[in-house]
């Protein structure tokens, strides 16, 4: 119950909702209360004061009555007046909602309790006023001070407002219901704001909790990733050592160092070598991948002409493209600026992309490698100094276009993830580890560049597959910024 709740820091809210510790001054606006008093006074001409339960005056609208001023000008009169006022102030109507307190002048004060939700929060004091049925000046007024002038007192007393007690009761009821409404609205506003605050705090606490859980699992994942990279590096290294021996010995066998080989024997040995080379390439890409992930790959940076790189890629791939019946085109824009990079790694990037392109393009299709400059992203037209910067190339773009099965839009972001392949069956048909594009992306990024993939909308000779469907083709766009 209460103990459990307050241990979560909500004790204040619970107090509030259960209605304990409500104070008049917390529920109402003092200025608004002052205005209620003023308009009350303007309407009835009777002084009114509102006190909190602890006796503090919250608002009033008071005009000293002439007779009161006169009495207060006399020494003993002033003392008697003070005593009456403090008695009125501390008078409590008790369980009844109102009480009447007399003054020696014959006037009375009406004390009206302010209750909210069954609790006394304060009181309203209305008066002094003369009861309508007061016939003559009471003796107590003349007895209050020996210096009092009966003629003057008699002249001044009737200037005080004269009201019928039942009228005061009705006015009191009205005042109570007005105040009750104000208190209810105030209470609601107070609860709303407190509740709002508490809700926000609670939501914040929840978020904090979830955040710390998330960052914990993030740290754990990072650690797992590191372990995986270590594992890859170790395994690749350990696999490479015996493989080098296998390749070396099968090469020696093929060259006849261990004795002349006959027909099929030679063929078998060459198959062993071929598959061994493939395995070595695979292990190398695993090593590359783990080096890139751990950030230990070294780069020999220089100014590189991409045209030359693409030409080398072209001549490497030409034989296999020809064999497959795929047209390989290379188009490099004249005066293409050089970029900063590692020529060997750049060759690796484009060889991988172009190899893929050839692999996925069916016979009769074409693969194009296009390099050009781009000036998008330079100064906007209305910027200061546009005339100086316009058409200045900001990057070099290389497009690798194919006429293959394409990559569905939803898969395009994922093709660069390590070990990801769009369709598991394509591995069996086309081979590959699913590591190539992941390595390519990292290598491009190491050069400060970006790589994206899209549908090849500029195919000049679209190819159709066995079912007569047009192959959408894919285009990889690599962009290297120029400094």
């Amino acid at each position, binding site marked *: *119950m*209460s103990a*459990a*709740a307050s*241990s*979560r820091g*909500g004790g204040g*809210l*619970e107090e509030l*909702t*259960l*209605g*304990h510790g409500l104070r008049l001054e917390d529920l109402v606006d003092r200025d608004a209360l002052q205005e209620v008093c003023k308009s009350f006074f303007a309407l009835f001409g009777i002084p009114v004061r509102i006190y909190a339960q602890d006796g503090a005056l919250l608002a009033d609208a008071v005009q000293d009555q002439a007779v009161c001023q006169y009495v207060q000008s006399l020494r003993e009169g002033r003392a008697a007046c003070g005593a009456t006022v403090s008695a009125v102030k501390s008078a409590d109507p008790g369980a009844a909602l109102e009480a009447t307190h007399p003054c020696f002048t014959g006037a009375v004060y009406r004390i009206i309790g302010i209750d909210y*939700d*069954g609790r006394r929060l304060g009181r309203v004091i209305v008066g002094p006023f003369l009861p309508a049925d007061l016939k003559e000046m009471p003796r107590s007024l003349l007895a209050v001070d020996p210096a009092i002038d009966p003629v003057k007192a008699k002249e001044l007393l009737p200037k005080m407002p004269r009201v019928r007690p039942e009228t005061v009761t009705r006015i009191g009821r009205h005042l109570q219901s007005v105040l009750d409404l104000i208190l*209810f609205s105030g*209470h*609601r506003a107070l*609860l*709303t704001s407190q*509740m*709002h605050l*508490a*809700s926000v705090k*609670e*939501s914040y606490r*929840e978020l904090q909790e979830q955040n710390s859980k998330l960052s914990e699992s993030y740290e754990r994942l990072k650690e797992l990733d590191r372990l995986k990279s270590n594992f890859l590096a170790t395994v690749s290294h350990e696999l490479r050592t015996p493989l080098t021996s296998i390749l070396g010995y099968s090469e020696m066998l093929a060259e006849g160092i261990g004795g002349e080989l006959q027909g099929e024997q030679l063929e078998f040995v060459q198959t062993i070598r071929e598959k061994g080379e493939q395995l070595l390439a695979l292990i190398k890409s695993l090593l590359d991948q783990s080096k890139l992930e751990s950030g230990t790959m070294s780069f020999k940076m220089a100014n590189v002409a991409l045209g030359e790189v693409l030409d080398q890629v072209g001549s490497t791939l030409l034989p296999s493209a020809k064999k497959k019946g795929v047209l390989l085109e290379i188009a490099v824009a004249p005066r293409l600026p050089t970029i900063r990079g590692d020529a060997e790694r750049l060759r690796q990037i484009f060889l991988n992309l172009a190899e893929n392109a050839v692999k996925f393009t069916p016979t009769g299709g074409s693969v194009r490698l296009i390099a050009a400059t781009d000036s998008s992203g330079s100064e906007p037209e209305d910027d200061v100094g546009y005339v100086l910067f316009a058409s200045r190339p900001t990057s070099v773009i290389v497009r690798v276009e194919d006429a293959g099965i394409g990559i569905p839009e939803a898969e395009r972001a994922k093709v660069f993830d390590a070990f990801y392949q769009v369709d598991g069956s394509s591995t069996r048909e086309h081979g590959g580890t699913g590591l190539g594009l992941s390595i390519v992306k990292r290598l491009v990024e190491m050069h400060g560049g970006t790589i994206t993939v899209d549908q090849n909308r500029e195919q000049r000779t679209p190819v159709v597959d066995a079912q007569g469907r047009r192959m959408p083709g894919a285009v990889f766009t690599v962009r290297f910024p120029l400094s």
Partner: protein
Amino acid sequence: MQLDFAARELTIKLVYYGPALSGKTTNLQAMHKLTSEGSHGRLMTLETRDDRTLFFDLLPLAVKAEGDLSLRIKLFTVPGQVIHASTRRLVLQGADGVAFIADSQLAEAENNRVSFLDLRQNLKDNGLDLKKMPVVIQFNKRDLPGDTIRGDDEIADLARHGREPVYKAVATRGDGVIETFLGLVAMTWSRLDTDHNFSKKFNIRSDSFVASLARQLGITGDPQRLIDASVGTDPRAATRRMESSR
């Protein structure tokens, strides 16, 4: 529960819980209508523009109970929408009893379940155990067409297997609202009395406590008969079971 021993004043907090639009606020509105003018305060509603409860509704009841104990009962509703989870947890703080207002519609069965699990979790987060909490369940909207709501026989059958009293209601007409309230009050009082020995401290006859409260609230009809309108486990047995699991 808050007790001001000097003022002989006891404040009890009862929370109406349940899925969105199951009729929690309607229950409070009906309570406001069905109790006598002097025994309740204004119904306070903290609502958003679309008339859904934003934080809670609050209906204060106050009566002089037996043995000159001042009894204040604060009825709260929680916002049913899933997003107001933190508000529900806050409103549930310090609750002495819970009336779970379920929507009888078959289509709402899953929402009822989700909300009940949410209740259990939020009680747990407040350090309270549902098993030890006075709880009654109300199946509201019994006036909807028979083929869209859970049938009476089915509810009665399920209730027999459950551990808490189950009431059927049409809160918009006020049917079953008082029954639900009195059933919950009876269980809550019994639980508080066992824990704090109020009947001895305040010289209250425990067996007539609820009857006296009902009379003070201006509730007509035999209170015990109203309480016994539950199907399945009757409140007295439920209370015993709740206490034995403590």
